[in-house]
C-alpha cells in the first residue's frame, strides 16, 4: 500500500489541492489526514468538505488541537491561533462541526499509528520536537498498539526519528523526494510536516508517502499557489499576519 500522510492543512485549500495532485501522481492509494484541518487559513469549509468526501474512498482522519479549538472556540482570545478559531467556527456548517466532533485522536492501520501530536496522552497535544518527546510517543504507541511506525504532525517540521545501533532515538532530517528505507524490523517515528503552514522559510507544502510493501518513506515538498492562499486570507478579513507568513513560509 502507498499511504499518503498529510497533516496541518490549516484551511489552506491551494496547498491541499497541490499535495493531493502530487500524491496521486506518485500513485498514492490511500490518504491519511493527521489533524489540524482548519485554523489560520481562509477555506475551512472547502477543506473539510474535500476531506469528508475522501473518507468515502477510505481516507483516515484524526483530530488536531485546532479542530478541537474550532469546535469549542475559547471565550477569550489569548493567542494568534485563538483569534481564527471563532471565525472558523462561524464558517463551518453544522454537519461539518458534527463530523469534526466525532474524529478520533488516534487511528491504527496495519502496523502504522497515526496521531496529531504525541501518542503519549494524545489529548495533551504534546509537541514532538526532540528525541525525548519522540521516544515518549513511540514507546507509548508500541506498548498500546503493537505498531512499527508512528506518524504525526503538529510541529510543522519534517523529521524522522529512528533507533540506530545505540539505545536512544536519533533524529534525521530527510531530503525531500528521496525514498528512505524504513525496514519493518525497526521502529520509526515521523513528523511529516505541515501541508498548509510551512514554517522553515520555504513556502512549499509538506507531506509524506509511505510505501508499506517496499518499506520506504518519502518526504515531499510541493510548490503551491501561496499568493492565492494569502489573498484568500486577506479577502476573508482575517489578520494580515496569517497571509504574510504564508508568503514567506514562516
Amino acid at each position, binding site marked *: 500500500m502507498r499511504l499518503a500522510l498529510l497533516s496541518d492543512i490549516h484551511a489552506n485549500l491551494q496547498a491541499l489541492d497541490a499535495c493531493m495532485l502530487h500524491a496521486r501522481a506518485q500513485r498514492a492509494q490511500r490518504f491519511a489526514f493527521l489533524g489540524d484541518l482548519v485554523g489560520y487559513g481562509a477555506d475551512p469549509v472547502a477543506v473539510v468538505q474535500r476531506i469528508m468526501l475522501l473518507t468515502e474512498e477510505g481516507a483516515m482522519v484524526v483530530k488536531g488541537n485546532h479542530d478541537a479549538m474550532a469546535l469549542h472556540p475559547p471565550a477569550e482570545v489569548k493567542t494568534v491561533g485563538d483569534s481564527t478559531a471563532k471565525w472558523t467556527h462561524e464558517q463551518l456548517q453544522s454537519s461539518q462541526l458534527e463530523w469534526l466532533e466525532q474524529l478520533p485522536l488516534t487511528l491504527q492501520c496495519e502496523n502504522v499509528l497515526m496521531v496529531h501530536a504525541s501518542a503519549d496522552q494524545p489529548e495533551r497535544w504534546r509537541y514532538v520536537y526532540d528525541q525525548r518527546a519522540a521516544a515518549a510517543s513511540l514507546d507509548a504507541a508500541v506498548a498500546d498498539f503493537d505498531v512499527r511506525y508512528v506518524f504525526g504532525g503538529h510541529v510543522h517540521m519534517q523529521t524522522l526519528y*529512528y533507533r*540506530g*545501533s545505540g539505545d*536512544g532515538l536519533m533524529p534525521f532530517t530527510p*531530503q525531500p523526494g*528521496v525514498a528512505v528505507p524504513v*525496514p519493518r*524490523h525497526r521502529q520509526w517515528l515521523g513528523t511529516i510536516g505541515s501541508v498548509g503552514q510551512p514554517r522553515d522559510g520555504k513556502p512549499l507544502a509538506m507531506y509524506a508517502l509511505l510505501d508499506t510493501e517496499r518499506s520506504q518513506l518519502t518526504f515531499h515538498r510541493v510548490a503551491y499557489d501561496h499568493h492565492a492562499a494569502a489573498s484568500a486570507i486577506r479577502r476573508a478579513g482575517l489578520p494580515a499576519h496569517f497571509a504574510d507568513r504564508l508568503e514567506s513560509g514562516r
Partner: protein
Amino acid sequence: MKLLEPGALLDGFAIDECIHSGGMAHIYRVHYANGQPNPGFDMAMKVPRMTAGDGAENIVSFEVECQIIQALHGSHVPRFVAAGDLQNVPYLVMEYIQGETLDHWIEAETRPGIDEMARLGAAMARAAHALHLQNTVHLDLKPANVLFRADGSAVLLDFGLSCHAHYPDLLAEQLRKAVGSPTWIAPEQVVGVRGDPRSDIFAIGVMLYELCTGELPFGSPQTEGGLRQRLWMDPVPPRKIQPDIPAWLQEVVLRCLEPEAAQRYASAALLAFDLTHPTQVLITERGLNTRGTKFRTHFKRWLKAAGMHYQPSPVPSQQVEEVPIIMVAVPHKDVTDATLYSLRQAVARSLGTRPGARLACVTVISSSLTSTSDDEKSETSVHRRYLTDLRQWAQPLDHPGHQTSYHVLESGDVAQALLSYARGNDVSMIVMGAATHGLKTQRFVATVPIKVAMDAPCTIILVKQALPFEQLGEPVDAKRNGPDYSDSDSDEASLFGDDLGPLG
C-alpha cells in the same frame, strides 16, 4: 549462517563456489536458478554469518550495506542485483568484478615504482570522489576493499560502515563511538564523526603510506588511547624510511594524513589531480622534511586533541562542490586581447567565492609543433614557451588561496583534448572562449566550443569577448579595422549563424 554447498539454492539463485570466507560474511559466485541468463555481468552473493545469536553490529552493518549499495551507481561500485529480506533470508547479490585488490600490491615482494603508486592512488581517489558526489562516504577504505579492474580503474567494495547523507545513519548513536578499522580510520572518525569525505582521503593516505614505505603510519592500535594518537601525531616522514620517495609524493601522502581534516585535500578530486600532475605539486616543508615532527609541535597538538569532540559534518556532495577544479582553455593563436581579457575576467568571477578552488590553465598545441630531431622544437622547449605564455596570462589572477597549475596538451583535435582532460581530472567547470579556435574551418564544421559544450562532463562557461571601457580608446578602434579583428568578427557571426545548426 553455515557455509552453503555448491549447487544449493537460495531465493532463486544457484550457488557456485565460495570465493571468500570472512569474519562477517561468506561470498559466493551465483547464477539464476531458473536458467535465466546473467544480467550482462557475473554475479556474487554475500551472505552474512549472523544467526539470531550473533552480534548486533554485524547485522546492522549488513543492513547498511544493502541500503547504500542500492543507492549508488557508476563504474566505481559493484552493480546491485537483489537483496533478501533481512529477517528471513539475509543476502545481497551484486556484480562480480574480476581484478586484484590493493593487497596484491601491498603484499608483493617488490615495492611498486613511484609511477605505479601514483597511478593506484589516483585511481582510488577518483573512485572515492565518484562516491562523494553521490553523497556517500565509504569510511572503511582499506586494501581489501579496493579492487582494481584490468583498465586500472578502482572499484570500492564493502559499504558496511558507509554513510549516506540522505539516509538515517544506523551506525550513529548518541554515545559517539569510533566505527572503522583501526589501521585506516581517520582521526575525526575516532571521535565519532561520520560523513566527512576527508575521512576517506585519510584512509587513502594510510594506504599510500604503506605502499611507499612498507610500514603503517600509525600501526594497528588495539586501545582507545592508541587510536587517539592520530589526533595529534604526524607519522614518520616516508622519505626517512625510503629515501627514494620523491618530495612531491611525500607532500601528497602527508597532506592526506593531516590530523585536522581541514588541512587535508578538500576533495578526492584534488588529491587525484596532484597524483596525476607530480610536477604541479606545491612542495612545502611537509614534503621536504626527512627528520620528523618536533616534540614541541606534537605536544601542542596533543593538548588541543584532548578537547577534540564530535561535530556534525556537512553534506558530502556540498562540501566537495565548494572546492571545484576549474579548467580554463586558453588559446595560443588567432586570439584577440579582448578574448584573453574576457576569459580572465570570467575565471576571476568563477574562482571568486570559492577559496578552496583549484585552477588548471590548459592550452592545446598541434603535435606538429614539436619535433624529436630539431632542438629548437624539442618537446620541452616548445612546452616551456607555451607554459610561460600561460603563466603570464594567469598572473593577474594570482591569489594565495587558489592553487593554479599550467598544462600544455599536444593534440590534433583540440575539442577532444580538452574533453578528455576535463573527464580525466574530474573538472567541475570549464571556462573557454565562445569562439576562438579553428577560425578558418568553422564555417564548415562545428566549432571547438560547440563540440566541447555538447560533450562536456560538467558545467561550461562560454565567454564572449568584451573589452573594459577604459580600453575602448583609439588604438583599439584602429585595431578593430585591422585584419585580426575582421577575422574574429566573422568568427562571431558564423558562431551564431551556420554553426547553431547542429544544436537545433
